[in-house]
């Protein structure tokens, strides 16, 4: 971070004073970043959508009209009610409120994204960073050729194949998506770190005898944080799409739990008989989530000028 000259000249021997100046600089930087971010109305809309979805997902029990409709529940009197009145988005074939189920569906979608990214980012980043730093050696070749193999097949197909040989449930669909997602981080970080390894601060650290872990995690990694962070915020949307595709095919969230993809799949059975609301609202909910995270991610990309993501 850029140091800003503060007048009158501070006493640089005073540790407390130094810490205070650092805090102040950090606050000013954050303020400047927020100003830049907030100039783009689309990014702000994205941020608000994401916050709203996260809050809805956390407090689903308290904000939905029928929280018990996400557990085994049947009310055939009110089954297949069209949207409007007591049931804002209608009810499904068991008489369960679709709005409530969508809000709880957000929870599973976000859970999937969080778990997958927490598993995938450290692995992909470490592998890509090591391969990039040791570019041209056998380590680079081994790691990146394996990455190439994973990237040679469309991600959905590999995830489907893995999920299909395991027992179909939420946990296994997370495992399946994680197994095919890390190479994307490895490739991104490989490019970044192989460029950084020739920088002066890296060669200086090598000259004074810093150990490899120090160079990797203290010198190179901090300089890659913004592109990684940007990619993560964009990936939330894509992970949610893949998750909903798996659950659409019956390989993810299982009934009676409300996965957005599961709801679309079950609802589409009732399209020919005229109950159009059962499939379309969960489908639109997927679009809303992905749109929110993409607007936010695009805003962050502009903010950090991370074009390589």
């Amino acid at each position, binding site marked *: 971070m850029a140091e800003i000259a503060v007048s009158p000249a501070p006493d640089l021997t005073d540790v407390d004073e130094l810490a205070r100046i650092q805090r102040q600089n950090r606050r000013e930087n954050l303020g400047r970043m927020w100003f830049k971010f907030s100039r783009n109305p689309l990014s702000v809309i994205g941020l608000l959508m994401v916050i709203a979805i996260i809050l809805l997902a956390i407090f689903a029990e308290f904000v939905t009209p029928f929280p018990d409709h996400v557990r085994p529940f049947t009310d055939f009197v009110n089954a297949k009610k069209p949207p409007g009145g007591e049931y804002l988005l209608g009810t499904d074939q068991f008489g369960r409120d679709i709005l409530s189920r969508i809000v709880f569906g957000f929870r599973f979608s976000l859970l999937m994204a969080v778990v997958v990214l927490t598993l995938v980012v450290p692995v992909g980043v470490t592998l890509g960073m090591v391969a990039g730093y040791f570019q041209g050696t056998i380590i680079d070749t081994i790691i990146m050729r394996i990455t190439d193999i994973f990237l040679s097949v469309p*991600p959905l197909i590999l995830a489907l194949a893995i999920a299909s040989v395991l027992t179909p449930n939420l946990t296994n669909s997370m495992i399946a998506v994680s197994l095919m997602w890390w190479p994307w981080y490895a490739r991104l970080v490989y490019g970044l770190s192989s460029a950084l390894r020739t920088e002066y601060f890296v060669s200086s650290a090598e000259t004074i005898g810093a150990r490899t872990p120090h160079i990797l995690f203290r010198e190179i990694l901090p300089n890659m944080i913004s592109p990684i962070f940007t990619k993560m915020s964009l990936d939330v949307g894509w992970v949610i799409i893949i998750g909903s595709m798996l659950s659409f095919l019956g390989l993810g969230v299982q009934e009676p739990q409300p996965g957005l993809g599961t709801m679309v799949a079950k609802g589409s059975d009732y399209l020919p008989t005229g109950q159009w609301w059962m499939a379309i609202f969960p489908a639109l909910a997927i679009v809303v989530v*992905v*749109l929110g995270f*993409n607007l936010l991610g695009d805003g962050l990309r502009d903010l950090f000028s991370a074009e390589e993501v």
Partner: protein
Amino acid sequence: MNFLNVEELQRLFLFLLRRIFQSIFVLFGLSILIFLLSRVLPGDPARMALGARAPQETIQRLRDEMHLDEPLLQQYQIWFTNALGGDLGDSLRTRRPVVDDIVEFLPASMELVLLAGVISAIGGITLGTLSARHKDSWIDNLVRVISYMGVVTPAFVVAIIFLTFFTTAEFGLDLFPPIGRLSSGFEPPPRVTGLYTVDSLLAGQFDTFVNALHHLILPSLALALGSLSQEARITRSTMSDNLTRDYIAAERALGIPERTVTGKFLLKPSLIPTVSIFGLDFAANLSNAFLVEVIFNWPGISRYATTAMLYKDLNAIAAVILILGVTFIVVNILVDLVVGILDPRIRLRGARSD
């Protein structure tokens, strides 16, 4: 297009050779990955295929047939040699050679993906050009909003939206048939390519052609929307970058008509990134077709694979992934080649170092 001389052709050939060599390595790795997937993961493949209540002798027979009691390395060797000879085993569900199943179902998917490719290329380039030429006007803004929505909406959601609005009577827009490749009462045309639209034209059955096309439009449009949007966005951005270049201003100053400037001198260099994206999207659409085919009940390879996955038919799963992987890699090589021909800079650099 610039004339390719002998030296450049040689370079191109070397470049191609290099890419093919790399791809063979990747394919070999992919085959190991797929094999491990279908063998090492928990559970007995034979029991999974036959169900929990199958008698022990039947399971043992299938295990022998699949060489499951051999050491792993030997199993891979058998599987790999067979795969090289075009034998990917029998489907554990249909009990037919998987290759036969794939040959039967692949054309339906190809028909879908090809039409989607055509739609997305024409639509994407048109919209992108329109957007760039009328930059910051309402046309530009409209195209940008539509293409952004198109990028974030997955194909299966588009399919559901289309199915809801254009096939059910609820909204008075039931213009298209909801499922399948042909209406009942129509016989599939005699098989030449397996693409119903092409075969029916070849056989001179015009009614069948119209009916097949009518069934084809909605699913391929659903599939095309994402890549169309992506191509429109990339065409717009490269073209509006190139519009500010000096050579365009020079051409205009020379009095060359605007139509010639945009249509000829601007379009070609602006299409290079679009071609790359088109190739990637085309290959990716083979996997996006998975859910679209399920939704439109389209008897293609993706629906075949989905059924195989639900029945844990490991031979079929492995074969489909391998076929799709090969297609993906081949399309990527073709794209590199086309881009290389279009862009002399990449052609020259590619042969030297990459």
